[in-house]
């Protein structure tokens, strides 16, 4: 990361800045969705774009996700690079069709003749908004071939990864975390310094956010800062945890993950998404496939235990990972060492 002074911006502003710079550099970039123009996005991550680029390149739509997601496929065929905003990732069920049967598969179905440089930008994460407005669902997208799936954890990456997503010739599902979007850069112990200039963060490289020797905690998005806090707390118990920010779910940066696990010999996956049939199983299996059953002393996972996110905060806290529960998971996973 460039050594820049920390600016007083929040994550959504970093994302908006990344989008603005890409739109300035490339006239084929468009932003389409509900409330992206006049409102600048309900979380502010498209703020200022309407003023800068006008209502044709920043298009407020009716509540018609199926129509405007398909529209993005058509625009891609015409050489555009549309960024489509699905306000909450939980709404994907009304338009998954266009995402997984069109955008994701057309490059393949066309035998490589058609590109789909489409960004599906959406927000996930549990912040007390109950079962239909709290999911992350990266595991769902990751299961479907043809989509890159990424989720940044900090301001620097948010700006750089949205830029890389826009420039990618592959479709990218870009999942912001609602719990991060309004957080100020200064509050981040990692990735808080956001250069004013245009830059990108490669979409396929994980980051070791905190080095450690005893255990590899692999996570992403809103859970990274909780994992860092938990790792700090774990040191009081004599456990030195390494925290990896995966950044990308598809593809997984196996080199970084396996490199770490080969050293620590223990892997804990922390995943705010549903645990079953998702990232945690894939990560554990993928590591084992690469370094062998004998390469590890322990595997563990911690995340939403396949429960719809409840409304009451007392219940939500019981199913969504936080620093405290991650600490507990770290201590469990390193149990025999304590």
């Amino acid at each position, binding site marked *: 990361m460039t050594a820049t002074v920390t600016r007083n911006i929040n994550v959504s502003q970093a994302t908006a800045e990344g989008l603005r710079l890409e739109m300035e550099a490339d006239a084929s970039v468009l932003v389409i969705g509900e409330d992206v123009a006049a409102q600048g996005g309900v979380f502010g991550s498209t703020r200022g774009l309407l003023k800068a680029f006008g209502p044709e390149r920043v298009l407020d739509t009716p509540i018609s996700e199926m129509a405007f997601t398909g529209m993005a496929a058509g625009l891609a065929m015409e050489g555009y690079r549309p960024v489509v905003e699905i306000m909450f990732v939980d709404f994907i069920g009304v338009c998954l069709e266009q995402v997984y049967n069109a955008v994701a598969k057309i490059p393949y179905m066309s035998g490589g003749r058609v590109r789909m440089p489409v960004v599906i930008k959406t927000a996930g994460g549990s912040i007390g908004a109950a079962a239909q407005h709290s999911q992350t669902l990266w595991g769902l997208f990751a299961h479907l071939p043809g989509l890159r799936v990424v989720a940044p954890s900090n301001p620097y990456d948010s700006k750089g990864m949205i830029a890389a997503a826009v420039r990618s010739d592959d479709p990218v599902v870009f999942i912001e975390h609602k719990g991060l979007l309004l957080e100020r850069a200064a509050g981040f112990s990692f990735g808080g310094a956001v250069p004013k200039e245009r830059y990108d963060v490669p979409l396929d490289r994980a980051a070791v956010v905190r080095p450690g020797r005893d255990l590899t905690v692999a996570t992403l998005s809103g859970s990274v800062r909780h994992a860092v806090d938990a790792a700090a707390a774990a040191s009081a118990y004599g456990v030195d945890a390494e925290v990896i920010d995966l950044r990308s779910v598809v593809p997984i940066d196996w080199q970084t993950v396996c490199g770490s696990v080969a050293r620590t010999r223990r892997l804990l996956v922390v995943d705010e998404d549903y645990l079953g049939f998702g990232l945690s199983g894939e990560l554990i299996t993928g590591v084992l496939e690469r370094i062998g059953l004998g390469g590890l002393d322990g595997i563990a996972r911690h995340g939403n235990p396949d429960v719809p996110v409840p409304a009451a*905060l007392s219940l939500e806290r019981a199913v969504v990972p936080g620093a405290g529960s991650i600490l507990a998971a770290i201590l469990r996973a390193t149990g025999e060492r304590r």
Partner: protein
Amino acid sequence: MELSTERRDDWARRYRLMSLMRRFEEACLEGVASTEIHGELHTAIGQEAVAAALAEHLRDDDALTSTHRHHLHAIAKGVPIIPLLAEIFEKETGLCGGYGGHMHVFSPEQRFSTTGIVGASLPVALGHAYAARLQRRDAVAVAVIGDGSVNTGGFAEAMNMAGVLRLGLVVVIENNEWAISVPFSASSATPTLAERAPAFGAVGERADGLDVDEVSGALERAFAHARSGAGPAVVEAMCYRFRGHYEGDLDLYRDSAEKARRIADKDPLRIAERALSASGLLTAQELGALDAAAAADIAAALAEVRAASQPPARTAHDHVFASGLVPNASVREETPA
């Protein structure tokens, strides 16, 4: 609004209900201010006349499906107020034990449900309407939706199915002119929504949704049509969203002078109040008494709700499956305590 004097008691009930609805929403605002309610609460302040009119036509055996902005529809359908408010406050004593929260309210006794997904409530209403068909009941299913919801695919699919099957579906569109920050004019291909009804074999009319009597009249015709087996009916009730889309919405996209003017001039409660005083049907004092009674009811409800607890953390895993299935029971220790 012209008032007929025979209906003094009806008007008193009506006014009291509208007043209660306003107080209910204000109680929610109190919960937001005190952070007892979190998340994105949607109130329907300014839209009371539609819900109060609905209450006059809904039967117990009718069903009602609603949206994110549903509190008043729940009240109209007879969902008891204390568990309703308790659910919005996410209390153990809530209608759904605090699992659903303010956007997801289910009351099978009243055949009432909501969803946080725009356009997703209409298909569910279709199921209620089809059940009435199967049972040869003349009950209707009412779906209350916003102007923005009409542009979802779910709306069109459900309307066409109701049309071709001639189901007893009443669609009440609360056209408050906005879908979050997108104005109605920027999202609809037609100048009115009522005029889309014929495309689905439905009848449709637009009514002034600030005028409880006018909207009640339109609903009367719609309910009669739907109950008769003639197929779906649409009422587009014109109204205005007094507050931001949700509590916390800065609402910078609307002209604030116009907003202030409309709130001052076009409050459905004040409109009713003025008409009632002017006609002499109810005195200012009587109206004040009705307001006070409504306020007292809500104050009592709020106090009771506030006294209740949040559901205990250990119950977070319950109810995922009605059968009690817990797919990964044996590795449950991995989950936070």
